């Protein structure tokens, strides 16, 4: 080991013909060390275009070589709506709170399908992009976020469908529609938060891959997709609201078809949980990030 040579070598004059491309004063210094680094907000912002490209790739690849393309985004909620309407609307006769059951179900389904797809794709995003992880550096956080943002595009198409159905039933569209983005933010926050947690776990435990579809099945029935949240006794609503998706769907329906708005306590609990999951997801993911390439 010749550590001393190190310094000596650096003192060597540089070939005069070469003009060092002098780094601008604002060139950032990166420190690579085993210590946990803080969440790289600056870098995430600087490379936001890459996030855009990853989302674009998701969308582009999703419907390549399909005949009906993005119409699949409508197909899934429509078929589910038809089935649910027959079983839960007609046969079981669930209360849909004043609107027709198909309209009621469609509102919940559009949001639920977005959430379920976003979460399952996000949780597999790291292992699906193993080649990228082990060969190129970029902020890893962008991988699980991409399918969630890509899903938003599909949900927008789905929401258009809901509006169409609502309008044809001559339900009045109202100012409440302007509030619709807020419950969407709530599900996006929890999809990203849980997605980050699950994807990081998935790198170490492939069990996650098998557990997520099952978990989502249970989760759907813990959310007011086929039934109205009104059937939950008021005393239980704050507990029920620990699932942020439940409140998001209730508010979403309220803004689309005028179903009852969830209690304030439930909203507070859901927003709190979603923000906590988002923050926790980012921190846990950032901490685990250093080992991804060694393990995946």
């Amino acid at each position, binding site marked *: 080991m010749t550590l001393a040579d190190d310094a000596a070598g650096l003192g060597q004059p540089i070939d005069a013909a070469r003009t060092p491309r002098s780094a601008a004063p604002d060139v950032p210094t990166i420190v690579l060390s085993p210590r946990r680094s803080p969440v790289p907000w600056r870098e995430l912002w600087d490379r936001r275009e890459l996030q855009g490209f990853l989302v674009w790739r998701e969308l582009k690849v999703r419907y390549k070589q399909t005949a009906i393309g993005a119409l699949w985004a409508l197909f899934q909620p429509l078929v589910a709506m038809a089935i649910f309407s027959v079983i839960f609307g007609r046969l079981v006769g669930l209360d849909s709170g004043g609107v027709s059951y198909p309209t009621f179900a469609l509102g919940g389904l559009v949001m639920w399908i977005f959430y379920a797809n976003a979460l399952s794709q996000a949780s597999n995003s790291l292992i699906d992009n193993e080649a990228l992880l082990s060969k190129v550096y*970029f902020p890893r956080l962008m991988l699980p976020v991409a399918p969630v943002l890509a899903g938003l595009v599909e949900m927008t198409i789905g929401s258009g469908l809901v509006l169409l159905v609502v309008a044809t039933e001559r339900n009045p569209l109202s100012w409440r529609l302007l509030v619709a983005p807020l419950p969407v933010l709530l599900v996006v926050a929890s999809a990203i938060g849980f997605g980050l947690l699950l994807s990081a776990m998935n790198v170490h435990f492939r069990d996650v891959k098998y557990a997520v579809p099952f978990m989502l099945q249970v989760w759907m029935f813990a959310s007011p997709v086929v039934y109205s949240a009104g059937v939950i006794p008021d005393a239980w609503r704050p507990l029920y609201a620990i699932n942020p998706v439940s409140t998001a769907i209730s508010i979403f329906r309220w803004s689309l078809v005028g179903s009852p708005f969830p209690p304030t306590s439930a909203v507070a609990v859901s927003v709190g949980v979603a923000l906590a999951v988002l923050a926790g997801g980012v921190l846990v993911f950032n901490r685990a990030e250093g080992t991804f390439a060694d393990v995946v």
Partner: protein
Amino acid sequence: MLSETPVRSTGSAAIVATGVSKRYLLGEREQYRALRDVLAGAFQRGGDAPVRREELWALRDLSFGVDEGEVLGVIGRNGAGKSTLLKILSRITSPTEGEIRIRGRIGSLLEVGSGFHPELTGIENVFLNGAILGMTRSEIRAKLDEILAFAEMEQFATTPVKHYSVGMFMRLAFAVAAHLESEILIVDEVLAVGDARFQEKCLSKMGEVARSGRSVLFVSHNLEATLSLCDRGILLERGQLLFDGSTTEAVDTYRRLAGVSTRSGDEVVLDDAKRLGTGQARFEAVTINPGRGTGSGTTDVDGAGQGDTTIGSGAPLVLDLGVTATEAVEVSSLGITFSTEAGLLLLNLDSADGAEALQLSPGDHRIRLTIPSLRLAPGRYRMGLRLANPVTTRLGSGAIDLLDPALVLQLDAPAGDRPASAPVVEGPIRQGNGSVVQGSMTVELLDR
């Protein structure tokens, strides 16, 4: 260690690495934990110490610096830690100990094409891959034509890359990576891809980048390229910094290292090699240029258990082969093959062309095989060994014993052999003045 090492002022340094180490737990790469194992572990952990897994220090306490605008060559044998160093520098994995300060944007020409998606078209992949490597959309748009032209890909730009040939794919991938503008660039020479002509283009592009005034880390097995491109060289050996100084000295040290540390003339035992054949007789060991001093003929067995052997290109090659026969057997054909590392067979020499058959009695034998002058270009070659006779050939088993590769042969440029007029690009077979093998191969049984 860390605190004792003075950290140089970062005024003009592009990279300062201080006490960098990387530890891998063996098995970690292949095994992911199933939740079951962790749960089982949780219940068993009754005060027991956790199971110790074997550790491998791929890098140990490495400190060096790269000045702004400097081209640093990183050399070392396989397994010396070069790839690990590159992975850490390009931020794919983090060091276990120590710290690296990097000033400026770092671009790496390490693994090209990993961001390519088969369903997307050439142009779409250029944008996606460029963004992954750190280019902005406007940068990519500005360079798109240049990239497509470099890859010679204009007419396929809108075809999904899944329809590309491997060569087209690699060309496009290299073109994207090579047009990345960053203050610091990490280049792995094995990146030169495609056919010979495109490889030449890749290498000249790398040279261009190295001379453009950027800080460059150049990693290569090709000592000639390192000498011509780099201002300074560091030599890694078993994860440690063995030398840091002028490129010439680094390369000399590397060449000496191969000679000094590896016991010239020692046997390479062939028990790890994969073999085919009837097994009536087996190659047990090879000694390269027996009885020679240091420098000219050296052998070593590297970490992978595979022989890695260095001799001069154009020099005579003498092999003493230890062969054990389990029964009396006639060997009419003793063959030796040389292939590129990728497995392309270049040369097949066989004692059946002229030499007398060897009669091997049961027991151990030494056979000396002499090639008067092996005029392959400097580089690494797979050497295969073969014993056969007409019976085994007719029976369809092909050989009595067949090892390919038996070992990897490193042919160095002999000192003073490279005149200024050496060809820029050289194929593996060196024509020079005469044939590839001058004189004929001889085989003799050294037994008493």
